């Protein structure tokens, strides 16, 4: 009886009883996943707890003496201004590069070209700052003068043109170069996924290469480009060192992007002021960091939502 019963029982038990090793391992894996969620929540929680003194302090104790909103406001404006310029510079270029690498470059060297563009992402931001202030800013001075001469009626180019080139415009261009590989990598991916049947059908009907791209590739890749641009925007909003090195900031809210006095950005203001800050100044800086965190969080969540929504109905199905 027992001899026959023993071999039968284990299989039925194995379905329900899990080995301790299994339980430990899956528990550790699940725990790490939950830990990551906790870290993200912790970032928000610790920033809020350290920002709280500044949020509740009387307005005259905040640096500048006019309250938190008027301290952070110009910084937010500067952050958005630089990021928008970066986006305007980078998006058309990135789409062009992505199209070139996926559909125009000779097949044999296309992968290498994609890798070269990705190298732009590998260069540390502090080095971009070095390059921006030593090479790009002086080179752009005549361009600043030309802008204010020809387009001076726009508030952005009101002048007087900076003679050092350390302006929001230069910063925006450097940020544009930095986010170029992000946008072009995602655009490249969606462009190369455009259904081959659509592309071949367009070519078979006698479309030129550009007509094929316009009809089969761009409609398919549009949301991918938008998502890539938003991810690039998130990166540009939070970029610190390049802005801190290049920009001669500190002015209040102004839309003028080519003069010597620019609004600083949140991230660069923290980097520049934090090492010497004490007391309530630290809390104020952390409060501005909290604002940056929330802005980038919203931008990134929106971008990811677009990417994921697209992923649902793309590919082979």
């Amino acid at each position, binding site marked *: 009886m027992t001899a026959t019963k023993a071999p039968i029982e284990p299989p039925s038990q194995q379905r329900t009883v899990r080995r301790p*090793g299994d339980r430990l391992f899956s528990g550790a894996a699940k*725990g790490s996943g939950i830990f*990551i969620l906790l870290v993200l929540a912790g970032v928000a929680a610790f920033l809020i707890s350290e920002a709280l003194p500044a949020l509740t302090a009387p307005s005259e104790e905040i640096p500048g003496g006019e309250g938190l909103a008027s301290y952070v406001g110009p910084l937010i404006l500067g952050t958005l201004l630089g990021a928008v310029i970066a986006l305007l510079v980078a998006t058309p270029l990135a789409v062009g590069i992505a199209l070139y690498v996926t559909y125009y470059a000779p097949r044999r060297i296309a992968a290498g070209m994609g890798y070269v563009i990705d190298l732009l992402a590998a260069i540390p931001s502090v080095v971009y700052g070095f390059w921006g202030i030593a090479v790009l800013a002086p080179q752009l001075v005549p361009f600043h003068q030309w802008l204010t001469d020809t387009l001076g009626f726009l508030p952005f180019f009101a002048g007087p043109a900076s003679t050092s080139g350390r302006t929001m415009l230069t910063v925006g261009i450097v940020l544009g170069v930095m986010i170029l590989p992000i946008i072009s990598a995602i655009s490249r991916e969606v462009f190369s996924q455009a259904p081959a049947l659509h592309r071949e059908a367009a070519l078979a009907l006698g479309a030129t290469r550009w007509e094929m791209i316009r009809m089969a590739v761009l409609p398919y890749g549009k949301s991918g480009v938008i998502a890539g641009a938003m991810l690039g925007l998130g990166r540009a909003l939070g970029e610190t060192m390049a802005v801190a090195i290049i920009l001669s900031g500190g002015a209040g809210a102004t839309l003028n992007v080519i003069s010597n006095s620019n609004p600083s950005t949140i991230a660069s203001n*923290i980097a520049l002021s*934090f090492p010497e800050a004490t007391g309530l100044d630290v809390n104020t800086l952390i409060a501005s960091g909290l604002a940056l965190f929330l802005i980038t969080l919203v931008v990134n969540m929106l971008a990811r939502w677009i990417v994921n929504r697209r992923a649902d109905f793309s590919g082979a199905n």
Partner: protein
Amino acid sequence: MSIDTQSAPQPTRHAAGPVRTRRRLPRFAPLGVYLAGIAAGAALSALTGFSVVTTVVYGVVLGTLAVYVVSRSVEGQRKATDRLVTSLVTTAFAIAMVPLVSLVYTVLDNGLPRFDAAFFTNSMYRVVGEGGGAYHAILGTVIITALATVISVPIGLLTAIYLVEYGTGRLKRAITFFVDVMTGIPSIVAGLFSFALFTLVFGNSVRLGVMGAVALSVLMIPVVVRSCEEVLKLVPNELREASYALGVPKWRTVVKVVLPTAVAGLGTGITLAVARVVGETAPLLVTVGLITGTNLNPFDGRMATLPVFAYFQLTQPGTATQAFLDRAWTAALVLIILVMVLNVVARLISRFFAPKTGR
């Protein structure tokens, strides 16, 4: 045969009709027209006071226009638009190359003068002018990055295993989504988080190497998770099923079958994640600070790191300005070399440790 002879006259008669016989430019004609446009641009630039920048700008604009006009007159509207777009996207690629080449050239040009033995063997202790080096900063970067790797890799790898092998339902979706969102956290915010965390525990104005490692981990974990997840997904399901069929428990299947199969990809992903954080400056600036001497203990006070060292050498030069600028550029050069070496190593790992496919 008979069909051939009958149909042969058809095209010749057709060609004599209203359809133009040569609607395409010869193969190298567009390039020639483009170069002629660039030459015209150079001439225009010479008229208005020669400079390289205006030559290139005028040249590219005129070259593109020339190709469009010639193609339009010979090949018609549609083909001309196609050629216009071709030159536009090629120009876009060329424009992107300009900053890369210029940046690498500038860093090499300015960084090589101090790229000597002293830079790698001396610290900045009691150095106010010439000489000195980044010995302390290089070691600090290595220690803090290694610490960040030690924190990030187990968490990141286990999370990736959870997502691929165990995860289901809402928790999996939430983790995937928020890991993606986490890749977008600004580096300075990660630094502030670490600062706030340690300030609450240890009191005000604390600066430790480990704070920097924690900040870098926040940036590194999502990258590790994403790359490991992609690699683990590539492991064929047949291997897992074969292992289960032999009665191997799931956790041993993961450890002994799935991970060894994916080890090359995991190594590549982790190395690229290290490359991503090794050049981060902002989080270290607010958490680790900078000292001139050599501190190799990340649990005791400020440390020097290469990016922060480079930043302060450039922005706060002492009386001997040129010596500080030279050190700053050399530090930037070392940083770029470090990142490039890590990228190359990542590629080599995936080449040499890839599982034998047995083909």
